[in-house]
């Protein structure tokens, strides 16, 4: 049935069309930000990424052809150590939250985990500085890992909990009815059923911490050379991007672009893999 075209209806339809188009423009603008970032990084970073970048140490400004091999290895060391500390803690805390916690205590822990997740990363860095760097009088990879693991714990815990709770109740009841104790049920039925989701949230968490810079600035600090053990200042890709981009040398800027491209590539590959593991478009924890 055609709507009567009084002036008022024409006005209302015009408002409708204009406002709805504007929302589409908003969506377009926000998504185009992503492609702008990708485009610039590919253009500027693509020119600078070469074999040297992955195999050589950084050179002093003015010299051509250095790389960031130490930062790549340093980042890997720091992130792996952080995962070794953070993932198990988060995983078991998540099991407790989903399967064992009494209501009020569970709420308290959940709320604390969300608070910890919301703490600005620079403050996590201050904390790691006070407990590791200050007592040992030494910037170290260990301090950086500790800071990053603190960011990883709440993400893993809440992710694990969410996906464990999505396991159908009937599966638990089936296992329990067969006489399995709760812990056997958790280990052999519930966790395997939720493993895709748990792995997804773990990968997303590790991807997130591997791009973090602020907590590393005064914990792992940075290093122009190879770090000699975990208790030494250690270079990392994100911190290297920061120092190279803010320095006034053109060759350093090129290195920063290359490092940015490599870092973003790694983060995106991790994110896309994680989302492919959860094949159905399940909503992910933020």
């Amino acid at each position, binding site marked *: 049935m055609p709507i009567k075209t009084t002036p008022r209806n024409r006005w*209302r*339809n015009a408002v*409708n069309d204009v*406002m*709805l188009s504007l*929302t589409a423009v*908003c*969506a377009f603008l*926000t998504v185009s930000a992503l492609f702008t*970032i990708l485009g*610039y*990084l590919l253009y500027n970073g693509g020119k600078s990424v070469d074999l040297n970048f992955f195999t050589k140490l950084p050179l002093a400004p003015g010299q051509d052809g250095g790389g960031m091999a130490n930062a790549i290895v340093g980042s890997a060391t720091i992130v792996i150590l952080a995962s070794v500390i953070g993932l*198990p*803690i988060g995983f*078991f*805390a998540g099991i*407790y939250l989903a*399967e064992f*916690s*009494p209501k009020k205590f569970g709420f308290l*822990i959940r709320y*604390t985990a969300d*608070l910890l997740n*919301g*703490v*600005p*990363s*620079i*403050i*996590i860095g*201050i*904390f790691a500085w*006070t*407990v590791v760097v200050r007592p040992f009088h030494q910037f170290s990879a260990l301090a950086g890992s500790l800071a990053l693991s603190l960011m990883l714990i709440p993400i893993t815990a809440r992710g694990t909990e969410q996906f464990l709770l999505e396991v159908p109740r009937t599966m638990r009841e089936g296992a329990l009815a067969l006489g399995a*104790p*709760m*812990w*056997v049920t958790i280990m052999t039925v519930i966790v395997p059923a939720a493993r895709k989701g748990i792995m997804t949230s773990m990968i*997303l968490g590790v*991807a*997130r911490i591997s*791009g973090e*810079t*602020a907590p590393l*600035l*005064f914990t792992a*600090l940075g290093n122009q050379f190879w770090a000699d053990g975990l208790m030494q200042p250690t270079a990392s890709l994100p911190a290297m991007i*920061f120092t190279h*981009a*803010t320095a006034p040398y053109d060759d350093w800027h090129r290195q*920063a*672009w290359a490092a*940015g491209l490599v*870092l*973003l590539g790694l983060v*995106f590959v991790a*994110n*896309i893999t994680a989302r492919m593991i959860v094949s159905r478009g399940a*909503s992910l924890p*933020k």
Partner: protein
Amino acid sequence: MSTSAAAVAKPKLASKRLVGGDQVAQVFTCFFAVLILAVTAFLVYELWISSSPSKERFGFGFLTSRLWNPVTDQYGALPYIYGTVLTSFLALVIAVPLGVGAAIYLSELALPKWSNALTFLVELLAAVPSVIFGLLAIFTLVPIMRDYVQPGLQKVFGNESFLFGGPTFGVGYLTAGLILAVMTFPFIISVSREALMAVPREQREAALALGATQWESTWQIVLPYAKLGILGSVFLGLARALGETMAVTMVIGNDPGIHASLLSPGYTIASVIANEFSEAGGKYYPSALVELGLVLFALTMIINGVAQLLIVLTTKKGSAKA
């Protein structure tokens, strides 16, 4: 009393049903959960203790003083608090209309397939590390701001005007606000979209059946219904913006003053910590920086708490749909 009698007496208590291995498992996992509590408490304790020299010496004057001089050991937080609040406010002014608009498009207009694809891209944008935003901002946004946007604003508003006066450097409050806006709107979009999608279908159908246009139904019915969730997303974005460090540090201009002009360089709490902490020596310098961290911590915790509360409230209300 035998075990079975106890089980019969209190069949509802989960803890009483646990035996043997289950008790071990419970205690074991509980240890890790309590660890989260302990670490968070320890973090607050350390911030409090490490900032005590500065707290004792400057008292509440720390929050209102504009002086920041490591040579004479005089520290005041006001320029940093001002910069942090101003840049975050600018970010919200830009990000809220854009983010809510995009969320409306994704939840109300776009086909589900498109909506999911676009949401995936928005979530990828949220995963971009902060230092990469900073890298792009330094080399692309700052020159554009310096050469085109800032002179343009001065042409329109006059270069003596209150908000857009002064020389144009490219770096400063406005540039930081812009980059923060790009970093916050993914959060605003994805949380607002969920709040909008939780509005029952009947609400929309009833409005449309009464003859409302789709925009009227969205603006007058759906948005008010989801307003708590959207407000929650805004607070969540605000908390992110307040604590954001790297991108802001790279474009804020590092000027510890208070300026009315949005084009002027400034400083934020997070960026002064990032720039000065590793070189701070003596008794009061690091402690003043930790106290700045404590102020930032308190700010973000309050904002985050409000955000969580609002989001919990809406998910409860919208649970009819799921």
